[in-house]
């Protein structure tokens, strides 16, 4: 069976994301990449913790002045829900239900876009209300780099999922594109994993001081 072959419900394998050698390689390579990303984000977290609230003068805003719970809570719910919707998409992928998969991926994208919108609003808010910017202090640099790297990952993940959805919209699922969808969804979950630590370490721990 070759990757480009037209599949039916009956011939669709149980683990389409690992059905060919190429898919197995991608699957493993992507997990290893996530292992490396773990270290990347750990370095960013470590730097943030070392530079948290390190500002040049006393009139700079600190983490307990900046963060507001309602916005963070809303963003967290959006991203957590998008993780569930992408799980739904993969559920339908495994059942060879292309249309339903596309639908749930679409919802995931919308949730991700909303998250990104709130993040842009949030950054804008800090810069204009608190003069807390990328260049104003070491704390600012560390904060925007950590949260911004995560935001960049969200943006890249969205682009990736959208490209996959459009590219395959007319031709349905195959063993060639199923691994691609699966990896994009793994990436999306990983973004969520990082966010769990961001809302805990940056925002919640920032609020308690």
């Amino acid at each position, binding site marked *: 069976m*070759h990757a*480009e072959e037209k599949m039916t419900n009956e011939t669709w394998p149980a683990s389409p994301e690992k059905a060919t050698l190429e898919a197995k*390689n991608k699957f*493993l390579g992507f997990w290893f990449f996530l*292992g490396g*990303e773990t270290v990347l984000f750990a370095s*960013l977290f470590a730097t943030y913790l070392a530079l948290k609230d390190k500002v040049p003068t006393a009139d700079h805003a600190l983490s307990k002045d900046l963060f507001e719970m309602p916005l963070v809570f809303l963003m967290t719910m959006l991203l957590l829900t998008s993780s569930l919707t992408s799980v739904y998409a993969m559920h339908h992928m495994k059942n060879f239900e292309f249309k339903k998969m596309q639908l749930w991926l679409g919802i995931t994208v919308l949730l991700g876009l909303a998250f990104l919108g709130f993040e842009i609003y949030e950054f804008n808010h800090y810069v204009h209300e608190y003069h807390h910017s990328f*260049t104003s202090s070491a704390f600012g640099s560390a904060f925007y780099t950590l949260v911004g790297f995560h935001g960049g990952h969200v943006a890249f993940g969205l682009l990736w999922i959208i490209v996959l959805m459009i*590219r395959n919209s007319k031709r349905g699922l195959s063993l060639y594109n199923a691994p691609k969808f699966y990896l994009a969804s793994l990436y999306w979950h990983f973004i969520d994993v990082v966010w769990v630590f961001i809302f805990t370490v940056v925002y919640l721990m920032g609020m308690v001081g």
Partner: protein
Amino acid sequence: MSTYAQKKGVGAVLWDYLTTVDHKKIAILYLIAGGFFFVLGGLEAMVIRIQLAIPDNNFVSAGFYNEVLTMHGTTMIFLAAMPILLGFMNAVMPLQIGARDVAFPFLNALGFWLFLFGGLFLNLSWFLGGAPDAGWTSYASLSLASEGHGIDFYALGLQISGFGTLIGGINFLVTIINMRAPGMTYMRMPLFTWTTFVASALILFAFPPLTVGIFFLTFDRLFGANFFDPTMGGNTVIWEHLFWIFGHPEVYILILPAFGIFSEIISTFSRKRLFGYSSMVFATVLIGFLGFMVWAHHMFTTGLGPIANSIFAVATMAIAVPTGIKIFNWLFTMWGGSIRFTTPMLYAVSFVPSFLLGGVTGVMLAVAAADYQYHDTYFVVAHFHYVIVGGVVLAILAATHFYWPKMFGTMLNEFLGKITFWLFLIGFHLTFFIQHFLGLMGMPRRIFTFLPNQGLEVGNVVSTVGAFFMAIAVIILLINIVITSVKNVKVGNDPWGDGRSLEWAIASPPPFYNFKQLPLVRGLDPYWIEKMEGKKEMTPAEPLGDIHMPNNSFIPFMISLGLFIAAFGAMYRLDYSWGLPVLILGLLVTLLSMFTRSIKDDHGFHIHKEDLIDEDKGRKA
């Protein structure tokens, strides 16, 4: 294959190499590019040694000396040693595990082009206002104060080439896990494959901290961030930590493949199975693991406090244990063997004591209290040159002779090879042994000149003489390569006659699909096992069938080119109005190339069974 390969014009060959995804051709590209940077770094070393030959010398100015010194270290580590080793991994590892290619041929090419463009970018600094001048470690307080764009070339160039290395690491990991031939269990893998595996894992975890550190440096210098600026709340020690969390595993990324190469050579030319194979594997993994626990021994004098210093000192000394296991295993492999002193074997035999010297001074440096005396002196310079040159460079030279026939189908001249070896070995010890004593006498490292009548003259002149020996050795090696290529006397599958692992079971150079039929592996040293039973080739594990191969692609080149362009934009953004548009343009080129790759289906092609049979007949006729 060979018949129409000869008819190709220069343009076609060039296009073939620009688009290739074949691991053997990528290996050659790595070797050429890495070799070029090795010569460049060597020339920089010669400038250093000429400047330090006599006291109060003014061969180069102090500022230029700083640039040469920085570029020597950076080039040798990032652009010479690592790429050349990646080249050998590419050339040999897939053959050793009986694979037809690596797991991600496209990414393999991308890794190479990212490395090359990063390296070119870094070296263009010589022509565009001056090279980086803050040492290869580029400590933040110094690198933030450095004027001009030198440090920006360092940061952006290493960032681009670092992505390439990371991609290469992931590629090798997946290749080794997923692409082994039938019967090739983990504990039957040749030691070079094992060390490639562990070194790749180290790349995977060590490069992200460097990426982060370089991002911080770039943001601080070019985008107004304050990570390392104490007046804004920043902290320069963060750079030191990030750099060494990367930097220490990096030296193991270099030395482990060197250990692998020597393990292969020693067992081949002792004509014995490697002594203590499983303990060798265990020691390799343990060194890789401990490599992440010791980075702060580079920072003993930073003032981390006695507890941290003690912990890191003990962890560092612990590494001597697995390394000692390896040393003894090599000795026991040779013991009782029927040794042939070929050029690669000469390197291997001399490596053991040379590297041991570097290891012993390493344990001396690990004593935190004593390190306050050694720190930033020539003692440290002598130590790390003993491990890097006495370990890695000897391994690279040995592998060049050992694997040359497998990669190019011709044998390097043994006589010239032995001259190269003796000149290099003598030169190496002349240059660096005396530097231990220069350091103990108080000569600081990175100093551009020294005063007369302080007892430093003799040591420095000896050191410079030694450097010339090494330079002549490398020139003879180059001559040897030219002569061998011109003569072009082709050799067979197993030119050394004592090959043990799978790569020696197939033609030199191998056909582009490597194995017509995947071989059946029946134990450690599979080719040796077959030879001992009187067979000439491996038993196939599958019937002759169609072979699936990946398509060539120009996209890796374009992705790397985009980042290369973007780096110029980022660097000149504050100086010129065209900076920002160029930055965006470069990133667009990269993103659009990735987009093209994503939407264009690439299923590769099949070599048909009939063609394989025809080719076989053609060869025999």
